[in-house]
């Protein structure tokens, strides 16, 4: 499939039928007019053969709709570039890699920052017992992993990382409402730059709504989303460290 042009469209029951299910709420009272508005709205979004299959009042002023529609929009699948970091080494390979290429224990400091109190994600990456049968970084013989927990301010995190001469900072952000994570993540980088330590360590972010793309945009070295395993981030960190050293030396 690769190489040649591969235009794709959603599939309902026939190739390229473009079938899509939608649901949304409109701020209008439930009525035949509301149904028609929902239909027209879906048309505006570019769907055709739009069917408002269900509508229900949510209050005097809002109506909920379920819609099926079809679209002729297509995407060239071959042009899709994945920025996600695909799994590379496993637990043993990472340790060997460090022994061979870095030749010392590396230091990694992690925290869930700001007012965010979700520890489970960063724990999954760092704690001994790990996550879904994948050992956490604390278990890696060649990694010194310090998990500061949650509700850590950016200042505290940087202070600790500098103090320990860390090779990498791991930041977890789970609460994303009103884009609070963007603010928080941006602040960290600005603070590090202000303190002149940004270039001294890798900075990696993670969380269910974090993508590598977003992290790169915000000045991080990488970002990891839902379903990340410890070895994914470990692989990235050690390879990046070696790569950076190669460049700088």
């Amino acid at each position, binding site marked *: 499939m690769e190489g040649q042009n591969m235009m794709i469209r959603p599939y*309902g*029951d*026939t*190739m390229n039928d473009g079938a899509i299910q939608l649901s949304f709420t409109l701020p209008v009272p439930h009525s035949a007019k509301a149904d028609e508005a929902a239909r027209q709205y879906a048309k505006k979004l570019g769907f055709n053969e739009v069917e408002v299959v269900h509508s*229900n009042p949510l209050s005097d002023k809002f109506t909920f709709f379920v819609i*099926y529609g079809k679209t002729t929009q297509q995407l060239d699948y071959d042009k899709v570039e994945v920025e996600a970091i695909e799994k590379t080494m496993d637990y043993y390979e990472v340790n060997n890699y460090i022994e061979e290429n870095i030749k010392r224990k590396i230091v990694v400091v992690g925290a869930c920052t700001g007012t965010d109190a979700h520890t489970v994600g960063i724990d999954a990456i760092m704690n001994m017992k790990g996550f879904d049968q994948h050992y956490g970084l604390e278990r890696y013989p060649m990694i010194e992993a310090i998990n500061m927990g949650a509700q850590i301010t950016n200042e505290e995190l940087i202070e600790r990382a500098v103090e320990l001469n860390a090779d990498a900072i791991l930041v977890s952000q789970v609460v994303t409402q009103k884009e609070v994570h963007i603010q928080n993540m941006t602040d960290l980088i600005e603070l590090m730059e202000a303190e002149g330590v940004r270039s001294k360590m890798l900075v990696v972010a993670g969380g269910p709504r974090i993508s590598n793309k977003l992290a790169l945009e915000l000045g991080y070295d990488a970002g990891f989303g839902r379903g990340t395993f410890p070895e994914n981030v470990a692989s990235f960190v050690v390879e990046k460290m070696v790569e950076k050293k190669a460049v700088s030396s």
Partner: protein
Amino acid sequence: MMDSKLNLDKSKIKKARQLSKEIAGPVNEYISQHTTVAIERATLRLLGADGVSKDEVPVPNMVINSLGDKIQYGAAKYYINALIRKNVSPQELNELIADGLDISSIDFTDQKLIDQKAEELVEGAAKRIKENVAYRSGKIDQYKEKENSPLLYLIVATGNIFEDVKQAQAAAKQGADIIAVIRTTGQSLLDFVPYGATTEGFGGTYATQENFKIMRKALDEVGEETGKYIRLVNYCSGLCMPEIAAMGALERLDMMLNDSMYGVLFRDINMYRTFVDQKFSRMINAFADITINSGEDNYLTTSDAYEKAYTVTASQFINEQFAYDSGLPAKLMGLGHAFEINPQMENGFLYEMAQAQMAREIFPEAPLKYMPPTKYMTGDIFKGFIMNAMFNFIAKSTNQGILLLGMLTEAIHTPFMQDRFLAVENARYILNSTKDFSNDIEFKKDGIMQTRAQDVLDQTIEFLENINQQGLFDSIENKMFAEVSRPKHGGKGFDGVTEKAKDYFNPVYKYLENELGLK
């Protein structure tokens, strides 16, 4: 394995069975004296007739058309006679017929020769079917532990057999145990079976022997890949009941929708035609070890599931009786019922569970086929999805045998691939999470569920008594089933019914009667 939760009165169950037997009596009398164009075509197919003319008329139909009144003597005789006289193989004869050969007027050869040839041909077909049976049971034994319980039954219905294959294989990978290829709307009213691979159907795909073959192969393939025997289902119902049964037996289908009265009530097919046809079709299914599915769910798409629950139970008894009369053992009786209770009904879940448990206790050996909510499904796919979850719950908790998975888009379109995936996901979650719930609870004595089941059983007996008094034919005319009246001599296909002549000849029928111990 099963202890009673409902505390049903055994003597009442016995009584209902007795009534069904009495009801079936006069019908069986009629059946034994008649044949139909479909029976004759099915017989021809099992003897080797196949193919189509230039105008797409199937060879079996060409034979029947040319026979006219003579079918009272059995079409087999003419076909076999022609084989001998022309000294050709069935394959060659089929081509001759397709090209216009009229076999109705060829002089008869010695009856001995005909009998001999008949035996040879019947043995050939029987061998093929027995091999199918052996293959199937071998595979099922081999892969037994991977099966879901109940078996997960999914439908495909794109109208195009090749799209169906994709959908079916995907469904099997997602965890389906059974794939049913829904037929195109209208096929049940055709008095012939279309030919070849087809790609144009509405709401379903034509049932043709070639389509059966294609799908069988696809399912065997994906079955080997996933380490499972994937069962294939199609529909006998309609004007071609026995013919489709014959094709299914030859192509190793595993289940057939095959109700004794569905065609009459829901497709307006003449009742005499249907009763005569269903018998032979069920004999074929019995011989081919094919599980039949009856269509009691359909009663509840028009009538209220609470009010008319007893019609479902009564129909199950009647279907059982006719199945026994065709040589089907209980283990092949996928008697139907459905979760069509109004979701607005207080304690609806309890009534539904009582009904499902009752079916389980009355028909302990039957692999009951439980149908999902359809009537009260709406465009609210979210609500629909949890109705399906409650349905799956009851199916598991009452040990149903076959679980036809509900689609969250039931009220909207024939299933998208993702709809089917979500259905399997739903079922697997519920089945696994409630695995031993059934064994872990008891129903309160004289509680809502016990009382409900007992009431329905009483109503069923009353209803069966009423039918027995009127006779089944008149009962149907008198609108006693599904709130629809079907005139005895109305409906489609009555002209295809013929009284058998005294020297009616049908070596297949005879063979099956012997094999099934019906004579």
